[in-house]
């Protein structure tokens, strides 16, 4: 059967009241955590991981996908009204969005963000529907050497893209990989890095690491700097687009989508890069370049479409190769694993109905998100009036709940506090935490594939460079390394020239 027929079966399965309910819960929670600054979709999915082990896989994954898409919608509300990105992919939206809000055009900014997100996520999901089976088909030929090379691509690009400097990104990645080594080696039964502590034999739970690095470090950071006072731009009218706003928005939506989806679906992805590119493109193409920096609607429409399309794109390598390229995708991968499902080419053949139900629910979730976000923009904006001491104290309560549910012992809570302090040090030092999460989750998979490859070749490392695909991938690794080393130098040179 072709993709379309499978998708229709997926829709038939997804419109049961139960699945619709979980999709609605997911998108509602997702929008809320997207709106709240400092609480992102990666953290939320991690917090809910242990709790949903009581749900059946389809319900849990539909909810997580809803949180993932919803977080992208909600993030723009905070960026526009508060001038703080609700999550990292909305950083660019603050540039023009908050200027529009201060000029009394908050409603138009929110509307172009929400409709642009809908258009982009829908096109992105359509592209996912037809691209994913092709990629999965292609990936069935991958053996351990190909996977090792793919992991290397992901490691390099994740460290280079998810932070400011390659050195700090690699540092974060290595810390994640090291934490991933703790526990009994599955292939030989040897305990590694346990130092005789029995409760470390099972390793450190991913949930605890994610909660500590994202939630505790945020709360600790606010203890140091104070919670401060923020000004929320007022939202007076309903979120609607005037005819001229629409005329200026729709080409930007489409261009943002065209940038976002392909970049998101590369095993290099992330949703941040396409938002930068989209903003630069809109600024260059705009008929009103003088408005940029003062609230140009294209500067909201393009990047918001780009980040939602990229979010759909990130699901391509996640579902077809099992390669997460963002922190949220990495945590969703863990959710699959906890149900004994391994995303990858076999997922489509072995768990086809589940995957297609999930993809169908993405379309449905998108419609729900548009309906939730346009008329209810004012309600979501009210979330921003929660005082931050209450917000972060509440985050701590959920952080300890998630940790207790994952581990269930006092030791787990102590590990949480210790890792939280490590996260605080990283935050203070400008070291990104997302690569650590990717390293923690991909590290053990990479090790397994590497050892499988070397066992096949009886220890001869040349197997890692055999075959056309692996060589291409290693060239990509080399180019990405050179590129990320050369880029800051070029930027510095351009900066000195600008100064004159």
């Amino acid at each position, binding site marked *: 059967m072709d993709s379309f027929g499978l998708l229709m079966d997926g829709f038939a399965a997804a419109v049961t009241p139960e699945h619709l309910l979980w999709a609605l819960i997911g998108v509602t929670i997702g929008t809320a955590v997207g709106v709240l600054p400092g609480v992102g979709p990666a953290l939320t999915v991690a917090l809910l991981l242990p709790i949903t082990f009581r749900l059946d896989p389809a319900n849990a994954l539909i909810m997580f996908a809803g949180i993932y898409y919803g977080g992208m919608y909600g993030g723009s509300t905070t960026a526009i009204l508060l001038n703080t990105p609700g999550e990292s992919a909305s950083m660019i939206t603050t540039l023009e969005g908050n200027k529009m809000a201060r000029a009394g055009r908050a409603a138009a900014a929110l509307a172009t963000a929400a409709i642009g997100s809908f258009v982009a996520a829908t096109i992105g999901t359509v592209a996912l529907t037809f691209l994913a089976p092709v990629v999965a088909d292609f990936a069935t030929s991958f053996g351990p050497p190909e996977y090792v090379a793919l992991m290397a691509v992901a490691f390099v690009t994740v460290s280079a893209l998810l932070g400011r400097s390659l050195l700090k990104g690699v*540092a974060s990645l290595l810390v994640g990989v090291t934490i991933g080594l703790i526990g009994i080696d599955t292939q030989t039964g040897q305990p*590694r890095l346990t130092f005789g502590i029995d409760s470390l034999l099972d390793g450190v739970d991913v949930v605890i690491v994610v909660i500590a690095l994202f939630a505790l470090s945020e709360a600790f950071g606010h203890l140091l700097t104070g919670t401060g006072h923020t000004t929320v731009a007022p939202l007076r009218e309903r979120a609607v687009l005037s005819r001229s706003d629409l005329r200026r928005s729709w080409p930007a939506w489409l261009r943002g989508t065209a940038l976002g989806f392909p970049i998101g679906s590369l095993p290099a992805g992330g949703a941040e890069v396409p938002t930068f590119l989209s903003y630069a493109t809109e600024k260059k193409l705009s008929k009103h370049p003088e408005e940029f920096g003062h609230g140009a609607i294209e500067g909201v429409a393009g990047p918001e479409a780009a980040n939602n399309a990229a979010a759909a794109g990130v699901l391509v390598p996640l579902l077809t190769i099992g390669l997460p390229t963002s922190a949220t995708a990495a945590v969703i991968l863990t959710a699959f694993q906890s149900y004994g499902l391994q995303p990858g080419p076999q997922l489509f053949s072995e768990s086809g109905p589940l995957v297609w139900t999930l993809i169908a629910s993405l379309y449905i979730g998108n419609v729900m998100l548009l309906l939730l976000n346009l008329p209810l923009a004012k309600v979501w904006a009210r979330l921003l009036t929660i005082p931050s001491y209450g917000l972060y104290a509440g985050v701590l309560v959920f952080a300890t*709940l998630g940790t207790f549910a994952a581990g269930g012992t006092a030791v787990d809570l102590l590990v949480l506090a210790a890792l939280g302090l490590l996260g605080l040090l990283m935050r203070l030092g400008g070291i990104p935490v997302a690569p650590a999460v990717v390293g923690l989750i991909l590290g053990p998979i990479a090790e397994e594939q590497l050892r499988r490859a070397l066992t096949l070749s009886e220890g001869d490392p040349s197997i890692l460079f055999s075959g056309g695909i692996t060589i291409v991938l290693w060239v990509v690794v080399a180019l990405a390394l050179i590129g990320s080393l050369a880029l800051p130098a070029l930027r510095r040179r351009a900066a000195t020239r600008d100064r004159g």
Partner: protein
Amino acid sequence: MTETEPAPDRRTVLSSGAFGAVMLVASVLVIVDAVRLPDTSGAVGPAAVPLPVGVLLGVVGGGLLVQARLQLARAADGEPWQRGAGPRVLGMVAALVAFALLLPVLGYVLTSTALFVAAAMLLGAPSFWRTVAYGWALAAIVFLVFDRVIGLSLPTGPWGF
């Protein structure tokens, strides 16, 4: 993006250097631990991956230390922390440790309320009794939803919640 990277402030530089030092310590631990792993008959033993990871930890940690040392000279003062910043973080860690130890004894609702109140007061909540009310309400709702509805069994104190 045409804006240039701002000069890093002293605290960022020192923290990134300290993180480099932590990585150096971790590097030694990982290498020592990997070396004592026994050899196996397979082509690749359990130490094959930890050894290079340990070496890389050392190299990158050293790199961060060197970078921090070089940047320290031109680092500017950053925004000041709020009053009692250090004690606040220590207080929060103490509250988390107390939570870990008291949870099985006093039950979920009471300990979580206490954790909420401690965190909120350290973060600068203006009114103690109102914070207690919020914390109690949140802990009670969480207990009802997750313990009674979803069926995750949370610890109960002698009074059953």
